[in-house]
């Protein structure tokens, strides 16, 4: 078949590690994972798939790469798992690099395809098995692995030191107080209604988001807390690299921090994959059927604040907006409707993207793909042309994006396709439209 060559990307995480691999080492890991870490789902999915290709139209990678079959969901399974099963004991190291490229960098495990497969085969799960195999062989793109290393050491994603974390909260509390007298970031408060957790890019590079939430909490008079100790970061890239032991530890710290502080519930900042890790993958690995204490995403929380009137809208946001619906909270939590409702409550001119709700296209950044870093950026942006088209068609100026990964992913798409749009978190919109009673103003 005359398919264009896939550009060779050099990534030391793969190129160096591959040198130490042998077919024997690979076989050992493959056999262990296939025999003892997978069960009914894996086996039945592999037996059931009739190679019909109906999942292809689901995948933004396929749609954006001129319907190149190597990017279709089943095409990715074929290039990885089918080969792995077929030649378990004679897999050459170079093949593992292909596997990592495909599973880590060319699939966002967004699960759109399992809504298109007539059998409901969870192709994202199958590709996660590939990631697991790669990770057990340390074949993980360098930047993603660095993030996982950070998780393993610091329980957060960006090597944030303990003192930096607390210092940032104290600084943002001061900033928030400059706007709203009663704003506080209560540290380690026991028995609060809300344990608020964020992802590490907030303290590291977007600290004002923490200041914003302090203001929102003050206006809404929410009884809340944040921990001064590890467990404050709800994100989890180990879940995506395939290092499930590290994933489990990170999630345990997160949930136990909230348990320790006797919080009634966890409210998570605007991040999709973090929600997935904290709500599903993490608890599952640890043995919890659901998170030990209720856990809600920011969209759910803002919906509650707005619909109960704890936050009033002073004026609506005028610029035309559309939305990037993060897979992990829309397909992953059915929050599409609530997201519409809070946008309707705060924005005047909203154009939904098409397709939307559970059928949204992934931003292309999720699933750890953006965390694979600069080497993979070109293919990532190219792999989401459909998103660019979809957004351009809305003719909006602002894309509301309640997910950190989507946020960066969409920004890359905007600049890659010169869309001339801007990305905002919902909290940023809320900050502009929320009514601040005069007696609270500093």
């Amino acid at each position, binding site marked *: 078949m005359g398919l264009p060559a896939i550009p060779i990307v050099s990534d030391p995480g793969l190129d160096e590690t591959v040198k130490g691999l042998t077919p024997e080492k690979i076989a050992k890991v493959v056999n262990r994972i296939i025999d003892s870490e997978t069960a009914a789902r894996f086996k039945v999915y592999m037996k059931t798939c009739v190679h019909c290709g109906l999942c292809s139209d689901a995948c933004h990678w396929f749609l954006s790469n001129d319907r190149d079959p190597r990017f279709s969901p089943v095409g990715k399974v074929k290039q990885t798992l089918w080969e792995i099963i077929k030649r378990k004991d004679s897999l050459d190291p170079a093949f593992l690099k292909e596997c990592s490229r495909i599973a880590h960098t060319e699939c966002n495990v967004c699960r759109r395809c399992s809504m298109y497969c007539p059998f409901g085969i969870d192709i994202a799960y199958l590709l996660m098995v590939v990631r697991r195999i790669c990770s*057990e062989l340390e074949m993980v793109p360098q930047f993603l692995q660095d993030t996982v*290393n950070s998780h393993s*050491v610091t329980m957060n994603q960006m090597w944030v030191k*303990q003192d930096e974390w607390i210092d940032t909260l104290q600084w943002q509390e001061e900033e928030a107080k400059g706007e709203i007298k009663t704003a506080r970031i209560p540290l380690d408060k026991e028995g609060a209604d809300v344990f608020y957790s964020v992802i590490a890019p907030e303290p590291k590079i977007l600290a004002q988001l923490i200041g914003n939430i302090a203001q929102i909490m003050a206006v809404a008079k929410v009884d809340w807390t944040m921990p*001064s100790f590890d467990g404050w970061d709800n994100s989890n890239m180990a879940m995506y690299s395939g290092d499930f032991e590290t994933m489990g530890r990170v999630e345990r710290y997160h949930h136990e921090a909230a348990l320790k502080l006797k919080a009634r519930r966890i409210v998570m900042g605007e991040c999709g994959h973090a929600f997935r890790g904290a709500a599903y993958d993490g608890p599952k690995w640890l043995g919890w059927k659901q998170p030990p204490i209720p856990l809600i995403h920011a969209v759910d929380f803002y919906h509650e604040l707005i619909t109960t009137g704890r936050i009033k809208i002073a004026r609506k946001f005028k610029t035309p907006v559309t939305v990037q619906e993060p897979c992990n909270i829309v397909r992953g939590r059915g929050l599409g409707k609530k997201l519409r409702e809070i946008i309707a409550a705060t924005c005047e001119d909203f154009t939904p993207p098409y397709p939307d709700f559970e059928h949204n296209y992934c931003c292309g950044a999720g699933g750890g793909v953006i965390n694979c870093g600069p080497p993979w950026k070109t293919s990532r942006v190219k792999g989401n042309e459909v998103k660019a088209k979809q957004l351009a068609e809305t003719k909006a100026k602002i894309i509301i994006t309640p997910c950190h990964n989507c946020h960066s992913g969409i920004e890359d798409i905007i600049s890659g396709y010169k869309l001339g749009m801007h990305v905002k978190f919902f909290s940023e919109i809320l900050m502009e439209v929320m009514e601040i009673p005069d007696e609270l103003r500093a």
Partner: protein
Amino acid sequence: MNLKAYPEKHSWDWETSTKEIANISDWISSFPEVQEIVISPEGERIAAIVMTEDDVFSVCVNGELWTNTFEKAWSLKFSPNGSLFCIGMNDDEWTVIEEDKPWEDSFDYVWNMKFSPESPGVGVNVRTSEGYGVALNGNPWDSKFVQMRSLEVSPDGKRAAGTVQLTSLAEGDVFSFKKGLWGLAVDGELWGTNFLNVWDCVFSTEGTKVAAEVRLVSGRQTIAVDGIPWDQEFKAVWRPIFVPDGHDVIAPCLTTDGWRLLVNGKSLWNKSFNQAWNTVFSPNGAKLAAVVSPEFGRWTIGVDGNVWKNSFGEVVLAPVFSPDGQRVAAVAKDSGKWTIIVNDVPWIENFDMIWDPAFSPDGLHVAAKAARGSDYFVVVDGKNSNQKFSKLGAPVFSPDGSRLLMKTVEAGRYFRKIVPLKNLL
């Protein structure tokens, strides 16, 4: 750990039935900001960080202000023996303040205030221009490290340990990371071995040995005692504990057939679990309990290998032994409601939140603080006294077990109450 009752407990006032200690509403009206209140173990004092004027903070204890003021203050806590501590900053210099008296040394940053459970001992992590370290009872370690991210104080309060970074790491350098850049420092002295990761550590009862969870290479974890890893390796491990008054170490480890409790790397209970963690010894060291999940999504307690019949669908917290070690209680949650289970018998009433159970000295009664909505209650043996409070401290049994100390906030006023146990049953 040999958690002995503090001798002071006998000297507490167990007679006066009600004392009004402070009027918090007054604080709120006289200070622009009153932060979270903390109550001393014996209930005679209540304190909060307050803002006295713009950007000036102090500590208000029973209505009296400390003489020291701070630009920033946090981590206000009573130690187990009843001293009041906080961390404060002036002119970008942070230090620990004990009972209105700052430590001599100050630091670029101070956090992680930890108390020793048995005798007075307080430690903090500190950052100075030379690096990261610990200050224990006011004395900073001589050695400093690239980074430090945990702190454990020995039971006698005389030693401290924590995870340290040995050499710095450039962003994205996954190859140096593989060499193992992390170690453990005990009283500032490094373990001879370095690891990919060193997580939680723990001291032996008399404080001479330290055990920690470590990761050897990617995908292989084990327990290291004084820097020497167990011979056995696992996919994952959780926090170890020392057998009281001994040097044997017990830890939950993920083996090929599930989570098991191991002692020095060998199987302890002849059972594997879907999950096992939060191991706790009885005060006399004779019994071991742990939170276990016998099957996916079900949680309960195992005591010496016997798994309780009642299990819960959401969570079970670390078990608590009675002083004689005969009974075990734990906080548990099912269908969104919290309760307590004592020796495999769950309380019938449930709550929106419940705190750790406390046993009476004879082990026959269990008391806990609980909440429904924004009301707090004292619950004894599953019976809710139905008296609501807007805030509540942890209830404490008198040494003879006949009375309960209740620390209550009602209508903005803080009361210390001694209630005969029989009134609550």
